[in-house]
């Protein structure tokens, strides 16, 4: 697919004065000499769902993975990620602590090869939660939160690998929210799933919104429009536009966004 040459300076970032959970300033990502992502300046509002959309290779996943420093080992990331008034993109900051506040769900379901229960308790135990009844409570809470409880409550000690794709992905969500994070990052969580599972996941996300700030990468525009409050459009390693979702999908400011939304790309 040949892209039109868009002007990367033709950008539009709407500002809203609600409370921010996470603010990034001037994020750059380099793989070796390759400057893979440019000038990430976005703010994410608390208890809202923000969708990051764009074509494959637009850098939205790369950007997302910076937010809980999953790129630490593979790339060089500069710029600031402000969380609770601190720049967490710094080697002084305890990366494990960051990740327990900013959880992540991946594109392909990746439950641990352990029982359903242990999938949830493994990290909790590691973070110091030993009390059995408290652990059981967390298991139930988080599975309910991920709308999975009713389906698995009778087989908590069975292997998580026996779950279907959609169930496994919801288990991964439950695993992430069991840590009681502030923010949930989701990297195309439904792209590997069938429509019914996708629907389930979307319902789950709507439920979760009241407790979490969610940032979700998706290439599915309908999905973005269905579930998100804000949307940002990414193109070729640049974030070009940020606005309310309905605005992006009805009347975007930037030409590239408009072309992408209307399917006129290339």
């Amino acid at each position: 697919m040949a892209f039109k040459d868009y002007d990367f300076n033709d950008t539009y970032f709407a500002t809203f004065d609600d409370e921010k959970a996470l603010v990034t300033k001037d994020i750059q990502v380099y793989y070796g000499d390759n400057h893979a992502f440019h000038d990430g300046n976005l703010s994410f509002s608390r208890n809202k769902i923000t969708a990051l959309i764009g074509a494959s290779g637009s850098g939205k996943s790369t950007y997302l993975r910076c937010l809980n420093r999953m790129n630490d080992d593979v790339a060089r990331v500069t710029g600031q990620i402000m969380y609770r008034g601190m720049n967490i993109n710094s080697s002084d900051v305890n990366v494990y602590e960051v990740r327990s506040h900013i959880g992540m769900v991946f594109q392909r379901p990746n439950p641990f090869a352990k029982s359903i229960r242990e999938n949830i308790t493994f990290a909790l135990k590691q973070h110091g939660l030993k009390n059995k009844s408290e652990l059981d409570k967390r298991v139930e809470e988080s599975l309910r939160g991920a709308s999975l409880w009713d389906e698995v409550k009778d087989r908590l000690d069975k292997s998580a690998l026996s779950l279907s794709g959609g169930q496994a992905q919801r288990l991964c969500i439950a695993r992430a929210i069991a840590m009681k994070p502030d923010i949930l990052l989701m990297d195309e969580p439904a792209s590997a799933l069938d429509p019914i599972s996708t629907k389930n996941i979307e319902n789950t996300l709507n439920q979760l919104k009241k407790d979490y700030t969610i940032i979700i990468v998706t290439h599915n525009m309908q999905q973005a429009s269905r579930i998100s409050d804000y949307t940002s459009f990414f193109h070729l390693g640049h974030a070009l536009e940020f606005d309310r979702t309905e605005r992006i999908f009805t009347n975007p400011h930037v030409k590239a966004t408009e072309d992408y939304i209307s399917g006129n790309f290339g």
Partner: protein
Amino acid sequence: MNPKIANKIADAVIYILVAIVVIILALLIGFILITGIPHISWHFLTSVSQSFSAGGGIRDQLFNSIYLLILTLIISFPIALGSGIYLAEYAPKNWFTSLIQTAIEVLSSLPSIIVGLFCYLLFVIEFQLGFSILSGAIALTFFNLPLLTRSIQESLESVPDLQRQAGASLGLSRWKTITGIIFPIAIPGIITGIILSAGRVFGEAAALIYTAGESAPAISYSNFNPFNPASFLNPMRPAETLAVHIWKVNTEGVTPDASQISSGSSAVLIIVILIFNLGAHYLGKHLYDKMTASK
């Protein structure tokens, strides 16, 4: 060529090759068992060996083989595990890492006698460990490390990265992710590595002649004090293993029944290895099921 025909031919070739291998292996093992089993008796398994008269058994050699294996694994497995983890998880992909790997692989091509002599000079003489099971275990560690490290590394590497990312995203340390999540999945592969290296321990003779020695002094099986020289648990006593015994009776054995002892011992060795392998697979499966909740 028509791909369908090529497919048929390829299948046929593979089946033929597999059949040849199976025939060879069956012949080999059948030969050892058929010539050996008639000489195995309760007496053979439970009496001490004789140096010049007939009717000697292999009690001590059999125990020594197993004890040596355990000691060797205790020494070599942790080192191999640590190194395997380093190579699979921490090592940067650069020339230095491949240098390390090449060095380890070259180590495995050294003739066992060289390693035996090296360990003799360094451990038996220099560090005064004497001819002992411990010296033998150290020598065998040299053989075990390359293969064991390699198979641990491969088993860890074959676990999908998604698992590592999941661990990291939950704020787990990489070490915890490796030991708690990746390692259990890799258990079956690691067990295979252990079995292969255990085979090497069971079968090795040349390196042990200079380290664990080729004599089996009388030991007592009721003495559980590992520091008592007569105790069967003492790692500092010289110990002839079954493979060394087979080597000895075949080369300089003067007992009239040398060839019977040799075939009997070979058959016993095969059976012991078989039991060990099955046991290891079973234990590995059990451990894997327990740690991964799969049934």
